[in-house]
C-alpha cells in the first residue's frame, strides 16, 4: 500500500518536472499592500496584466495583501513557511528586519554594472537612503510619499494673511497660526491654526521637525540612534509649545484618520499630512487650498515614507531575473507616471516627470510638484534593526512629552537608553 503510494507520488513528481521543462514560462508571485483609496489595487493589477501580455514567457500574479502591516506579516509567514513570493512591496523601513530574517537578497547580483549605474542611480537619492545598506541595494522605491503642509486659502484671507504664501519657517508658522486660531464668544476654539497628527506613529511627522532642526535620527547601518540629540529635543519642545505655549494647535494626541476631514470642515486652517492625501483633498476640500513644503528651521527637511520592492531569497535564478526585469519595467517612466497619477505617490525617478502624461498632469495640478521638489531636502524614514521595538520606544517618548507627562529632554533620554539596549547586539 505504502509502496504504491510512493510510486504514484514519484510518478506525479516526474510528470510535474516534465511539464515544467516543456513550457519555459516563469511563474512569479508578487504581494502588494494598499494604503490609498480609489483604484490603487486595480491599477497594479492592470499594469501586471499589461506586462504579462508583453512577456508571454512570464506568468506573474499580483496578490493584494492588505495594509502595510498585513502585507509584512503575510510575506514573512510565507517566507518562514517555505513558500515566499518572489517579489513583494513592503514598507521601506522593514529593510533591516527582512535582512535580519534572512529572507531577501540584494538586487545588485541580478544587474549588470551598467544597469547598476543607470537604473539604480536614476532614483531620487533620498528614496535610496531607506533602500541601501552596506553598499547593497535591497529595495527599489515604488509607492513612496513624503509629508507636506496643506493650507486653506480662504481661512488665510479671512485672517488678513496673504492667501498665496504658506509659512516658510517655524516662527512664521507660529505667527500665522496665532492669526488663524479663532475663538467664539465663550472662549472655545472654533478653528485651530495648525494640525500635526501624532496618534499611532508620531515619529514620522516628527521627523518633519527634527530634520529641519538639523538632526538625523538613525545611521544608515541601522544600529545607532540619536534620539536625545539637543536638536531633537529642540524639535520636540517646539511641537509641545505649539499647543501649550502658543495655543495654535489642539492639545493632546491628534488622530490621523479624521485629519483631512477636520481640514475640510474648517476645524484647522493648516494640516501636515502625507502627499498620499493629495487626490482626496483635491476632490473634497470645499475651498481653495495650497500645498507647501514643510517649514524650515536650520534647513528645510522632511522624511520620506512608503513602500519598496523587495526580492525574496527562496526562488530560482530564472525567477529572480524575471522579477528584476518586471521591477525595471514597472518603475520605467510610462508605468511610473500612470501609477503616480492614479495614487498620488511620488514617481521615484526624474524621467517619469518628463513624460507627456506627467507634464499634462502637473500643468493641470501644480501642487503635485511640491512633494517631488521637497525630495531634495528629504531624509530616510526612521528605520533600524529591531525596528518595531526601537520605533516604539521613540513613539512612547513623543507621546509622553505631548501628553505633558515628561519634559522633552527626559522622555528622549529614556528613549535613547532603551534603544541602545535593544540595538546592542547589532553594533
Amino acid at each position, binding site marked *: 500500500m505504502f509502496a504504491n503510494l510512493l510510486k504514484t507520488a514519484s510518478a506525479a513528481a516526474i510528470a510535474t518536472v516534465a511539464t515544467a521543462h516543456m513550457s519555459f514560462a516563469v511563474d512569479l508571485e508578487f504581494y502588494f499592500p494598499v494604503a490609498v483609496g480609489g483604484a490603487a489595487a486595480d491599477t497594479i493589477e492592470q499594469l501586471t496584466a499589461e506586462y504579462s501580455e508583453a512577456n508571454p514567457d512570464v506568468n506573474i500574479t499580483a496578490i493584494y495583501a492588505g495594509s502595510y502591516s498585513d502585507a509584512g506579516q503575510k510575506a514573512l509567514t510565507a517566507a518562514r513557511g517555505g513558500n515566499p513570493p518572489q517579489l513583494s512591496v513592503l514598507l521601506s523601513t522593514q529593510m533591516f528586519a527582512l535582512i535580519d530574517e534572512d529572507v531577501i537578497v540584494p538586487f545588485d547580483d541580478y544587474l549588470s554594472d551598467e544597469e547598476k549605474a543607470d537604473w539604480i542611480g536614476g532614483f531620487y537619492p533620498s528614496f535610496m537612503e531607506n533602500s541601501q545598506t552596506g553598499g547593497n541595494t535591497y529595495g527599489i522605491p515604488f509607492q513612496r510619499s513624503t509629508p507636506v503642509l496643506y493650507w486653506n486659502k480662504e481661512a488665510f484671507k479671512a485672517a488678513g494673511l496673504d492667501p498665496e504664501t504658506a509659512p516658510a519657517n517655524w516662527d512664521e508658522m507660529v505667527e500665522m497660526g496665532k492669526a488663524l486660531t479663532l475663538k467664539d464668544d465663550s472662549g472655545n476654539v472654533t478653528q485651530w491654526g495648525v494640525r500635526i497628527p501624532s496618534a499611532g506613529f508620531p515619529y514620522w511627522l516628527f521627523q518633519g521637525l527634527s530634520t529641519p532642526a538639523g538632526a538625523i535620527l538613525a545611521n544608515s547601518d541601522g544600529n545607532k540612534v540619536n534620539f536625545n540629540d539637543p536638536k531633537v529635543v529642540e524639535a520636540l519642545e517646539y511641537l509641545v509649545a505649539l499647543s501649550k505655549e502658543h495655543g495654535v494647535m489642539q492639545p493632546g494626541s491628534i488622530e490621523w484618520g*479624521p485629519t483631512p*476631514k477636520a481640514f475640510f470642515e474648517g476645524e484647522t486652517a493648516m494640516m501636515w*499630512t*502625507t502627499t*498620499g492625501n493629495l487626490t482626496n483633498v483635491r476632490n473634497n476640500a470645499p475651498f481653495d487650498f495650497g500645498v507647501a513644503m514643510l517649514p524650515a528651521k536650520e534647513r528645510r527637511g522632511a522624511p520620506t515614507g512608503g513602500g519598496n520592492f523587495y526580492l525574496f531569497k527562496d526562488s530560482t535564478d530564472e525567477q529572480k531575473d524575471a522579477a528584476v526585469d518586471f521591477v525595471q519595467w514597472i518603475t520605467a517612466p510610462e508605468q511610473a507616471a500612470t501609477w503616480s497619477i492614479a495614487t498620488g505617490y511620488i514617481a521615484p525617478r526624474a524621467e517619469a516627470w518628463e513624460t507627456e502624461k506627467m507634464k499634462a498632469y502637473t500643468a493641470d495640478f501644480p501642487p503635485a510638484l511640491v512633494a517631488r521638489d521637497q525630495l531634495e531636502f528629504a531624509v530616510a524614514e526612521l528605520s533600524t534593526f529591531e525596528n518595531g521595538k526601537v520605533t516604539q520606544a521613540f513613539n512612547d517618548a513623543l507621546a509622553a512629552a505631548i501628553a505633558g507627562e515628561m519634559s522633552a529632554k527626559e522622555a528622549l533620554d529614556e528613549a535613547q537608553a532603551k534603544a541602545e539596549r535593544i540595538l546592542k547586539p547589532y553594533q
Partner: protein
Amino acid sequence: MSYDRALNTTAAWMLAMFWLLPLAYAVWTAFHPAEFETRFEPFAPLTLQNFVQAWSEAPFARYFLNTMILVTGIVAAQFTLCTLAAFAFARFTFRGKGLMFALVLMQLLIMPDILIVENYRTMSQLGLIDTITAIGLPYVASAFGIFLLRQTFMTVPKELDDAARVEGCSYLGILWRVYIPLAKPTFLAYGLVSVSHHWNNFVWPLIVTNSVETRPLTVGLSIFAVTDSGIQWSVINAATLMTSGPLLIAFLLFQRQFVQSFMRAGIK
C-alpha cells in the same frame, strides 16, 4: 422598591444606548452623503450611493459566497468531530484518556496567532495554500467545542443511556437519539460563537489565500482601510453594514433562542 427599579431601568437603557451608539453612527453615515459624517441634521438627504460605491470596490458577491462556504464547512466539520470526541471523553474509559483530555485542554491555552507560521507550513506541505479548506482546517479540531460538548454530555443522566442500551441501541444510535437532542442548546450556542468568529476572522485567511476565488468578506473589507489617503467613514460603514448584515439579521431573528441557549450552555 419602585425607586430601585426605576434606577435599574435607567441604567439598563443607558448601557443599551451606549452599546447602540456605534451601530447608530454606522447606519447614519452609511445612508447619508459624506458631508454629514460629522454633522447631525435630522433631515439630511438619504442616499444609497455609499453602498453602490462600496459594492463596486471589491467583488463582494464572490466574497459572500466564499464566507458562506467557509463558515458552513467549518461548523459542519466542527460539529461532527467535536461531538464524536466529546462523546468518547464523556462516556468511555480507555487508556490515556486523562492525558489526551489534558492535551485537548492545552490547546485552549495557546493563542492561534502563535501557530500561524507552523500552520502555514503544514498547509503548504498539503498543497492547500490558497484554498477555502486551508482557511478552515486549522480550526476544525476545536478544543473549546470538545470541552463544551463533553461537559454537556456529562450532565445527561446515565439512566437514559442505560435504558437506550437495554432497548438494543448501538453507541452511535445512543449518541444520535439521546445525547445530541439533549445538547441542542449547546450546539446552537457553540455554532453561533463559531460562525461569528470565523465570519470575522481576518489575519489567517489573508495570509493563506491569494485569489478572489478563495478570500472571505473580511479581506474585501480591508481594502477600505486606507490610512494614507484619509478615511471615508460613509463608504467604510456602508461596507461594514453590508458584510455584517446577515449576522445582525440572524441574531435579531433568533435573539430569544440564542440568549436562552447561552444561558443553558453556560457560555457568557
